[in-house]
Structures are given as C-alpha cells and as structure tokens.
C-alpha cells in the first residue's frame, strides 16, 4: 500500500511541469488571452494552472497517507528515477526522499500554492501576460517540489536555482518599469552570492562524505571532523541567508515586492524564502557535529535580522514593504530556532507563518485592489467600512502574527521563545523585544489601513468572491494551525512526533525546564505583545506620544538602517569603478601591449624602409660594404 502510494511521488513534480509545458507550448487559439476579447481563455489558463497544482496537492496528501501507514522509523522512502550525473566516484541520481520533513513541506507548499493560484486567477484578471504569469507560477511550484523532495544536495540545488529563476521572472514580471526589472536582477544576483556558498558546501560535502545524499550525510555526520562539518554548515548558512533574506543578504526581498501580489504571497512569504530554513533543518545532524559556536552564529544572525527587520517594518509606508520586512523578521525567528536547537519550532513557525503571511499578503492585495493599485498606507484609512469581508480576514492575520492566543502564531512563536530561553537568556530578551515590535508594527498597519479617517476621495469596492475564497481558507488555517504542536502535553506535540524520525541525530536541544516555566514564558510574551499593541493603539488611534512616533518613523528605520543604500552605493560607485578599471586594463594594458608591439614593428619597418631608395647604386654600395665586411672577416680568420 505504502509502496504503491510512494510510487506516485513522481506525479507530484510532473503535474506542475506538464502545466508549465502546456502553457508554454499550447495552442494560441486555446490559451492566448491577448488575441481574445472575451475572458474565457483567461479563466481557462488560470484554472488549468491551478488544476495542476491542486493535482500536486492531492499527490502530496497521498504521500502523507503513505507515510502514515508506515512505522515511525520506516518513514523514509527513497525513489530513484534515473542516474543524473555519474562520473567517477560521483553518483548523483534524480531521486526523491519521502520522509516526514519533505512531506510536511510539500503539503503546505502545494496547499498554499493551490490557494494562491486560485486567488491569482481573479487577481490577475485583465493582465496582458496572463499566460506567461501562470506558466512561471507552475514552473515555480515544480522547482519548489524538486527542492524539498530531492534526496541529495545537488538535486535540491537544482530546485533551489529553479525557484530563484522563477522568482527573478516574477519580480520583473511587469518589466516595462525599469525599477521592476532591476529588482528582479537584484534578487537573482544576491541569491547567487548565497549560491556561491551552497556550491562550495556541495564540494566540501562530497569531499568529506563521498556522497551528496541527505541520508549519507546524516549518517556520516558524526564521524566527520568538526572543522569540515562546521565549514559546510557555515557555507550552507550563506546559501540559506541568500534565499531566506537574512543579514547581510536581506536587501533583495523588499525590492522583490515589485512583483504581483500573489507572487509576493507565494514566493516571497510562504514558500521560497523558507527554503533556507528547510535546508538547515535538513542538515541538522551536521549542526550537531559541528563546533558549538556554529549554531550560535546561526542564532545570532537570525536574531539580528529579526530585530533589524522588525524595527525597519514599523517605519514603512508601503503596505507590501511592511509585510516584506515583517517576513524577513519572521524568517529571522526561524533561524533563531534552528540555532537554538529547536528545529521543530522552526518548521512549526514556518508553517503557521506561511498561512498567516500569505493571508496578510493576499489581504493586502485585496486592499490595493480596492484602492486602485495604491499601496501607500498614509493614503488609506477607514477601509473597514468599505471592505466588509477583507477587514476581518486581515485582522485574523494580524492577531496571528502578533502572537495573540489562541491564534496559530502565538504557539509557534512561543515555542521558539522557549527554545531560545533554554539556550541563552540574553538572546531571549532580544527576541522577545522583536516579538513585541512585531505586534507594534502590525497594529500600526492595521490601524492606518482599516481605521481612522479616510485619506482618499473615491469609494473603494470590495473584491470578488474568487479573491476572497482563498482568504477564508488561509484565515481558517491561520487560526487553527496551532493545534499541530500544542505544548500542554506530550501527546499534543503532534508535529514533534511526526518529524522525529527525520530529525534523528539532529541538533535538537530538549527543554531543561518544566511546564511551569513554559507557562510563565507564554504569559510574559502575551504581556509584552499586548503592551506593544496597546502602545501602537495609543499612537495611531488616539494620536498620543507624538515623540515616540517620530522616533519610530525615523528615516533611519524607514531606510532600513541604510544597509541597502550603502550596498547600492558601493556597487554603483566603487564596485562599478573597479569593474570599469578592469575593462580599461584590458583595452589599455593588455591590448595596448599587443598593439604597441605591432606599432613598434611597423615603426621599425619604416626605418628599414629608408634603405630601399630604389636607386641601384646605393644598393650596390651596400653590397660592397657587405663584401668589405666579409673580407675583414676572412682576413681576421686568416691571421
């Protein structure tokens, strides 16, 4: 039974791949929305693409069922399609690993993906490049599936790069604006910096383990030297930082909001950006085998990112940018969890975050839809009167992310906080602060958008059912997802038990304190969150504490600590000049040398040419002089 079900794993990537191919090569008559006045082909395209993703979701569920039918420790099935790159001792296969971790990932990726596809069918209505959009989306889902299902580093890297490219395509989807095009290439190139680390990690791994398979790595981790393993982990962290927008490679994500909103929701909030987290959880045994300070590095990178991004989010004025910084911050939380030895919490938060952040993004999409594309929150306000469905849905997302019980965000965030408290008290305080700031900026956003005085003249209109339907689904999930891993008793820790076999030998630190402390920590985080939200309420609703508002919305935070600016000015200024210097070196020095040799030869020829007077008598004179020289030579020899 399980065997038969896991055999269907290939349909999982095949479905979106077929979707992509059909959309690319399909007949214009059936699919091209440009040539048609009616919307029928448009819907046909959208539903076709969504259908393929839903199919993938169905197969993901089948894999889940298959694993359930197996015993805990048999829950790791490898399926090989064919040998991909076999050279010498290197054997890389196209093969999938069906285990609790990959199935968890794939479930929420295809699930959320399907919902966002459906949303996009309506959201992208009227866009000229409808077909192109959905072909990219399908290709993205395909790559994402490869990324998480792959049973080795290299195949994972294929998916990793695939999602990167799709992200590039989709960010610069509306390419006739130069900023969008730039944002796309910026994302890709920044990611490539991370990929540099990833590729090096692959080389080190192959050298250390002689294989690239996840399972070989897990089993070999304990016997490898700590230094090698540490290098691999740090290099993978570089890769993960690129993809998951961690400091110092976080700069691309706010720009990535140039893409259409469904893209922001799917790729830049729910799925692709969490790939880095997935990767580090996947190699958890390596973290265990590396030096003790290596996880600490990961934790602190995550922590700094979480704080910096959260503090930037509270000053943003663009609704999508607030959410973008929020995403960076939340991803920071997940890295903190990994570094603190709580990978389950990371995955848990990844799932809940996928739900509520997708919900928030799609809600934001609905808002901008209503505002005719306006994204500046200063030009909104009082929208709750007009958007009777969107508002409560968005509020669900707000409560979830702010960590209000019993919404899902509270449980996952609390688990991370507990993990950090277990590890480092100082870090715990900082993270708690970051959680507080989260509540603050989200409250600010909600108040500015949905309440208060309207700052616009037209009448916003609520979105259609097609747009709202996926929001209901996501909202429901955002509310209840907490039950996946409730801390009240061992039996309620469903996710932890489920992931246990996949995390065997991984870097997991068990809590050194009991339920009582956990209660205290939970109440503490509720208090901090509540205070932050109350403060935000006072500032943005009651218009008090003007001075605090000034600090909060300071240019420094608005510009996200000037990190991006500094990098940009370096690349555009010094970096550009250095490159130009190299190019000048090529034309002036290298080519100059060659051309110099050539022109000197020419000059020499010009000098020699003077001897060619054309006058026979002077030639004869030269001959005579030559003869004289010969005679001198003979004479000397004869003497």
């Amino acid at each position: 039974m399980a065997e038969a079900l896991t055999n269907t794993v290939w349909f999982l990537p095949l479905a979106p791949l077929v979707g992509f191919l059909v959309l690319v090569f399909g007949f214009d008559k059936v699919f091209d929305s440009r040539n048609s006045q009616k919307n029928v082909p448009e819907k046909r395209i959208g539903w076709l693409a969504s259908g393929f993703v839903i199919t993938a979701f169905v197969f993901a569920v089948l894999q889940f069922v298959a694993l359930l039918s197996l015993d805990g420790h048999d829950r790791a099935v490898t399926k090989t399609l064919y040998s991909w790159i076999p050279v010498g001792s290197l054997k890389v296969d196209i093969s999938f690993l069906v285990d609790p971790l990959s199935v968890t990932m794939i479930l929420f990726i295809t699930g959320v993906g399907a919902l966002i596809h459906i949303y996009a069918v309506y959201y992208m209505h009227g866009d000229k490049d409808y077909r192109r959009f959905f072909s990219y989306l399908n290709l993205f889902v395909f790559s994402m599936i490869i990324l998480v299902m792959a049973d080795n580093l290299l195949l994972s890297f294929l998916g990793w790069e695939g999602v990167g490219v799709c992200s590039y395509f989709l960010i610069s989807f509306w390419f006739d604006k130069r900023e969008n095009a730039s944002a796309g290439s910026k994302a890709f190139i920044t990611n490539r910096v991370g990929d540099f680390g990833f590729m090096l990690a692959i080389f080190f791994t192959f050298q250390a383990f002689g294989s690239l398979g996840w399972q070989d790595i897990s089993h070999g981790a304990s016997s490898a030297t700590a230094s090698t393993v540490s290098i691999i982990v740090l290099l993978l962290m570089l890769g993960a930082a690129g993809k998951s927008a961690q400091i110092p490679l976080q700069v691309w994500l706010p720009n990535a909001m140039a893409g259409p909103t469904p893209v922001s929701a799917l790729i830049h909030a729910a799925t692709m950006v969490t790939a880095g987290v997935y990767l580090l959880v996947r190699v958890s045994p390596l973290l265990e085998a590396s030096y003790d300070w290596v996880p600490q590095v990961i934790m602190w990178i995550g922590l700094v990112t979480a704080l910096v991004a959260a503090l930037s989010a509270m000053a943003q004025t663009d609704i999508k940018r607030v959410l973008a910084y929020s995403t960076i911050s939340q991803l920071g939380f997940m890295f903190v969890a990994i570094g603190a030895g709580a990978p389950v919490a990371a995955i848990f938060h990844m799932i809940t975050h996928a739900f509520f952040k997708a919900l928030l993004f799609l809600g934001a999409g609905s808002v901008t839809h209503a505002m005719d594309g306006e994204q500046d929150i200063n030009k909104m306000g009082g929208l709750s009167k007009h958007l009777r469905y969107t508002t409560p849905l968005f509020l669900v997302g707000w409560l979830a992310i702010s960590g209000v019980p019993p919404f899902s965000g509270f449980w996952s965030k609390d688990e991370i906080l507990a993990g950090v408290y277990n590890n480092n008290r100082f870090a715990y305080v900082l993270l708690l602060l970051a959680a507080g700031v989260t509540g603050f900026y989200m409250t600010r956003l909600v108040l500015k958008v949905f309440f208060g005085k309207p700052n616009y003249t037209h009448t916003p209109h609520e979105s259609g059912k097609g747009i709202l339907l996926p929001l209901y689904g996501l909202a429901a999930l955002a509310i209840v997802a907490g039950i996946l891993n409730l801390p009240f008793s061992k039996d309620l820790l469903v996710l932890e038990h489920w992931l246990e076999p996949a995390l065997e030998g991984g870097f997991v630190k068990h809590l050194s304190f009991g339920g009582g402390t956990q209660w205290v920590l939970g109440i503490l985080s509720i208090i901090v969150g509540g205070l932050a939200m109350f403060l935000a309420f006072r500032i943005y609703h009651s218009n008090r504490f003007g001075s605090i508002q000034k600090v909060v919305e300071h240019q420094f935070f608005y510009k996200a600590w000037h990190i991006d600016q500094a990098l940009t000015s370096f690349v555009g200024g010094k970096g550009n000049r250095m490159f130009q210097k190299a190019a000048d070196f090529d034309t002036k020095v290298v080519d100059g040398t060659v051309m110099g040799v050539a022109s000197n030869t020419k000059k020499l020829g010009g000098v020699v040419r003077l001897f060619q007077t054309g006058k026979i008598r002077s030639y004869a004179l030269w001959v005579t002089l030559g003869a004289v020289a010969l005679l001198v030579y003979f004479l000397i020899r004869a003497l």
Partner: protein
Amino acid sequence: MEGFPILTVLIFVPLVGTAVISALPARFEKATVARNTAVGFSLVTLVLAAIVLIDFDTAIGSLQFVDRATWIAPSGIQWLVGVNGISIFMVALTAFLFPLCFIFLKQPEQNRRPYFALILMLQSGCLGAFLAQDLFLFFVFFEVVLVPMYFLIGRFGHARAKFASAKFFIFTMAGSALMLVGILAVALLTANKTGAPLTFDVESLAIADALSVAEARWVFLAFAIGFGVKVPLFPIHIWLPDAHTEAPTAGSIILAGVLLKLGTYGFLRFGIFLFPEAADFFAPVLMGLAVVGILYGAVVATMQKDLKRLVAYSSIAHLGFVVLGLFALNSQGISGAVLQMLNHGLSTGALFLLVGYLYERRHTRQISELEGIQKVAPIFAALFTVVMLSSIGLPGLNGFVGEFLILLGAFDAHRWFAVVATSGVILAAVYLLWAYKRVFHGPVEGENAKTPDLKWKERIGVGLFIVPIVLIGVYPRLLLNRIEPAVDNTIAHIQNVIGTEIDLTGEHESPHSEEGGEHR
C-alpha cells in the same frame, strides 16, 4: 561499415563541397545555388557524423574507426585518423553547427560562392583537426583552419574586420609556430632516444614517453602557448573580442563553437596526453591563469557596451572553466571540461545567433541603444532567456553539469582555485542579467518598438540549439557514458606515467642526462 574509411570520407566531404562551389559559374552568384550546395554537403557530413556517433562503441575508451595510411614516408608522417569519446562530440558539434549556419543565417549580398566555399573548407579543417591522431597531420589541419577563417572575418565581417582578422591570424600563427617546434622536438627526440623510426603517431609517442622531465616540460610549454592562444588563456586572449565582434554571425558561431575548442581539445589530447608529468607540473600555473580568465572575462564582460563583445568576453570566462577542469587531471574535472566544451559551443553559439538576429533587426549591437525588446518580441526574449540561463549555468540546463563537474574536480585537485573560480558563478549572472535587463526590459520606444519578433524559421534555428541544451542538462548521461571511458583511458595513462616518474625519479634522471650528453 567494416573497412569503410568513414572518418576520411567525413573529412573530405566538405572539401569536395568547397571544390564544387568554387567551380560554380558566376551566373549562379545571385541565386541560392551556392547555398543549397553548401547545405547539401554539410548535411551529408552531418549524416556521416551521426553514423559514427551511433556506431560508436560506448564501452571502449581508446580510438575507434581508425584509418591509417602512409603520407610522407621518409619522415614517418601518416594519414592517421581516429575517434574516441572525447573527439566524437567535437566532431558532432562541428557537424551540427555548420549546416545550422548555412540554413538559418542570411547569406551575404555579394561573394556568395567564396563565402560558402570558405566555410565548407573551414569545416573540413576542423573535422580533420579533431580526428587527426598524427601530430603532424593535426598541425596541418590546425593551420588549414586559419586560412578560411581569416578570409571569412576579413571579407565578410563588420567595419574593422580587416584589422581583426589580421590580429587573429598573427596571434594564432605565432602560437602555432611554437607548437610546430614542439611537435618536431617531441618526434625527433623520441626517435633519437628509442632508436625507433621517426613517427608522429600520438599514441605511440605517448606510450614511448621518452623525453626527460626537463625536455618534456619545455616542449609542453611550447604546446601550451600554441593552444593557449587558441583557447584563449588570460593574457593572450586579446585577439578574441575583436575577432568575435567583427566576424559575421556565422564566423562568430563557428569561432566560438568549434575553433576555440581546438585549443582546449589540443590541450587534452596532445598537451596532457603526451606530457602528463609536465601537465601536472604546470597545472597550478594553468589553473591559475584559467581562474584569472574566469573572473577577468566576467568582470570585463560586465562593462562592455557592445552586446557581441560582451558575449565574446563571456567566452573567455567559459573557456577558463574548461582549462580549469582539464588541469584538475581527474575524472570529474576532465569529463566536465569535455562536456563544457560542448556546452559552450551550444550556448555561446546560440547567443551569437540571437545577437546576430538582433543585429539584423536593429542594425546595432550597442546595449545603450536597445531597450524593452521583450515587449515587442516576447519569443525572442524567451529563447534568449533560456540560452542565457544555460550560459549562466542554471541547474537543469547543460551549462551547470559541466561547470559543476569542473569545479568539483578542481576542488579535489587544488581547493583554492575552485573556491575562487566558483565566485565566477556570481559574476556570470551579473553580466548576463544586467545586459538582459538593459536590452529586453524597460519601456519600449522609438526604433525598438518596431523590432519584429523571430520568424518561424529563426525560432526553429534557435530551438535546435535549445533541445540539446535542455537534454544535456536533464540527462547528461547520454554524453557522459561515452566521454567517461575515454577520460578514464587518459587518466590511466597519466597516472601510469606520473607514477613511474615519481617512483623512479632518482634512477630515471641520470640515464636521461647521460643521453643528453651524447647528443651534444
């Protein structure tokens, strides 16, 4: 097929085409007769190459289809052609690219007969150089290639074509002059030391391995300079951008796709195979130059204002990868390098084809004059994107497999070179994406708005490149199966020779120096 000299026929079919086209009377100048003849002959070549490819025995790493005849008897020079898993793909690439150039590119307005005759002659020379297993014969073909290329660039190129073609010719000629010295040295020294009759047969020279360590190093250096110009390696690359930029599109495709491979193929087949010890000795130098080439080519490419020149510099970076892989001197490195030679031919060939199409439409290659082309020519942009991603080395497309294997091999051999070279992966994305952004993205105005999209015929032309690009990326085993035995053969030979050199260094050195004394 037994006994039929298929490789000899393969080499001569295009040459017959040259003769036929040259003999066409002038009244056919205006018609497509010359072109059709060229297409016909190149297709026959393609079919023959396909037969060789199909008949090729994947299990054998040594030479197949060997055809041997005495040519210049007193010097022991033979007509000796054969194919192994490495050269077969170079032959296939050659046979594949030439008909494409005939069919999918516009023929010149004038001098059509010389144009096609020259290109066919070029094909003959390239095939001969890849198939020759006699050093002297190889040299002859290596030089034969120069002549038609010189005229192709000089007569059918762009504004500064005459200058570029002269530069190309002089550079390559200077390099190969040194190589000729090397060829004579290795043959004569071997004959002297072993007492066997003079021969230029590569395999027997390699097996004899008669040169002393010092001699082998010097001769290797001569070869390295000859091939290094052709590749081109870092400081002697400067002819390439000019030649590429000024050449007609067909010239650029062939130059990038086939001619540069003569250098890397030569390194592998003659440089490394004949002098494994010297190759090992100089490997750090050559890998260093390769790494410099990778980064330097990429950095300079970023700053180019001319799209074709940009692609030319990207070639330098790509060929840097190939050399890096070759001198890793291990299975992954060399297999990757061979694969990458093929990949570069496909992806850079396709890039040149696309840039050529763009030039036909817009009559400019200046990046600053182009913008927003994707809006009006979406198919063009889509195909360009795929080719570009292949060139960047995106997994799933061909470029990645080669680059990955090369870097893995290099990492095993000399870790730090590989680490630095990997950063070339970032730079590749920088220059290509930046160029793509400036040319295809952004608002479309003025002349750019009138750019027509690709016609069906042109789409098929690019598509023919993309099919193998995807195929190799997804299922590289098709090629690796054939490459690996030949590479293993080479590596076994290398290890054999290096092993004896190292083991017997003490005993080995003294007899050599005595022999050296006798000669003086």
